[in-house]
């Protein structure tokens, strides 16, 4: 067996195992960590296909940002596992239909030659150029306009998120030492002379 094939099967086996554990793990934190493992191995498979841009962005975006956020949410929320597992049998028929459909679709694509689906080979990049380089050049030349606009959309997303969630300024308990040192005892303590009240 060629070394490349061995690496592929090795990564795939880990990926299948990790994906299975994502849905079977009892602890949601473990499930999220297994998903991270699945992403890592998937990016390894992509590297084998010479799609290094996809591989890097998968790790950066999904593992670095999305999954960390996911983990935070999972850890912050008090998820009741038993309630999540309720109704497994009632969802099973629908779930299995969807699973069956997906298996069928995959079969059609993998067995494309039997179903007369156009087989498109792996696109080749120019020799001596990584696809990170070619994607980068396209993004900043031909597609610079939508690329910049996409960044504006992200900016709108930030502005909108802040506008919709930021409540009034919290009254911070921050003290300014410069003014604090000038405080005198009589500013803090007030002695009141109150007339004694008569009891009825």
């Amino acid at each position, binding site marked *: 067996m060629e070394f490349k094939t061995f690496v592929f099967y090795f990564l795939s086996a880990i990926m299948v195992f990790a994906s299975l554990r994502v849905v079977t793990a009892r602890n949601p934190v473990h499930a999220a960590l297994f998903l991270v493992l699945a992403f890592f191995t998937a990016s390894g498979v992509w590297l084998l296909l010479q799609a290094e841009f996809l591989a890097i962005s998968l790790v950066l975006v999904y593992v670095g940002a999305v999954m960390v956020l996911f983990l935070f949410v999972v850890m912050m929320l008090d998820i009741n596992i038993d309630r999540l597992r309720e109704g497994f049998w009632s969802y099973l028929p629908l779930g299995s239909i969807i699973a069956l459909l997906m298996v069928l679709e995959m079969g059609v694509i993998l067995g494309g030659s039997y179903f007369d689906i156009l087989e498109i080979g792996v696109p080749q990049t*120019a020799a*001596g*150029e990584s696809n990170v*380089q070619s994607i980068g*050049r396209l993004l*900043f*030349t*031909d*597609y*610079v*306009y*939508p690329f910049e*606009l*996409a960044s*504006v*959309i992200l*900016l*709108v*997303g930030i*502005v*909108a998120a*802040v*506008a*919709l969630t930021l409540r009034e300024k919290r009254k911070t308990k921050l003290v300014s030492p410069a003014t604090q040192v000038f405080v005198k005892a009589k500013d803090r303590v007030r002695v009141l002379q109150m007339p004694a009240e008569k009891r009825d």
Partner: protein
Amino acid sequence: MTLAEMQFVLPDLRPASAEIFLLAMTCVVMLADLFVKDKKRTLTFVLTQLTLIGTLLVTYATSTGEISYTFSNMYVSDLMADVLKVLLYVTVIVVLWYSRGYVLDRPQMAKGEFYSLTLFATLGMMVMISANHFLTIYIGIELLSLSLYAMVALNRDSVSATEAAMKYFVLGALASGLLLYGMSMIYGATGTLEITAVAERLHMGQANKSILVFGLVFLVSGLAFKLGVVPFHMWIPDVYHGAPTAVTLLIASAPKLAAFAIVIRMLVNGLIVLAQDWQMMLIILSVLSMAVGNFAAIAQTNLKRMLAYSAISHMGFMLLGLVTGVVGADARFALNAYSSAMFYVVTYVLTSAGTFGMILLLARAGFESEEIDDFKGLNKRSPWFAAVMMMMMFSMAGIPFFVGFFAKFSVLQAVVAAGYLWLAIVAVLFSLVGAFYYLRVVKIMYFDAPTDVTPIKAPIDIKLLMSANGLAVALLGVFPQILMSVCAYSIIRSL
């Protein structure tokens, strides 16, 4: 190719200078707003208005009237784009002006984001208007929609506004999905997303017709969602009703111009070879919209909801102009048809801005003035405002001699010229149904006793603006050829 051989050719930025100016100024407005202590945000308001005026000047200065492409043909600048953009800036300026008092009465809305999001939405509409690439159209739509979703929800403590924003967001995302799916099919069939290149490949007849038509169905459905025509209209009444009136005013006016532009860009500039197919789809959408819009509007008691259904029927009517461009591979009627549709959209935006402006004018802190009954006896409280509102309603109903009449007339004339007599008759019948609910508002204003007799107080600038808006509706009704020739000329120079 090695790194040293790579060359970066700076795209020609001149045609897109208005967009660049607006984006830069939007960032300035956002940053300046951080330092504004004033609760009224006067500085932000003034800066926003100046930005829009500045963008108008930049557009005017850089307009050549010629068709020019830049950013690797992703951006097109032509006379139609320039005219629509100028109308867009004017509309947004008027919208912000009308909204000023309403926003100040509601502390949740009086934030700098109201202005910066409006500017971002304006940028999105400009991108849509000047798009020559399916990708640019999609990004423009997303920029516009994302800003609008947030603006609808800006009044966070209102349950109905949050609900409206949620519905708008979910349905908008669905529509974007449909649109993208359609675009991907067209890409699959033609191998390009650039609109002029798509048109060329279709002319050469290389593309797979069945995939194209399949993609076209999704494309038209997505567009119909954005235009709000039946059966993709469900979001319109809820969003118009639930959103704060200032935001409703924005949604109901300026985006219609941009939506018209992308329909022209995608269907006419790009897919004109498939005209027989999309015209049939648009006829169905149009007839359904006029039917559902006009009949459902009768049952409404809320003015904003009524105007929402009226918007549906108006968009249906506008589509009539687009369906008559090509008759049996003969494009003689195209100019007439598309310019009448453009005229219709512009007059609709003009009247719609005035009508929602009137609701804003009558609203006070804690009182929305959005029920039709709130207009009872308006004539006794302010005869002039009642007269302006009457002009708006007459124009929307298409009563001569207001501008709305000429808009309907020119579309109908295009429809008859193309030989669809039955379609013209159907359109007239539904317009007659529509006249009922517009005239009911007039009747309530003039013949019913007011429930609230306090005279209407409005700042002088709003009074002047409202009067100008009303007079524009009346005067353009007397001299419609001014606007009509602008529309016709810009369409001639751009097709």
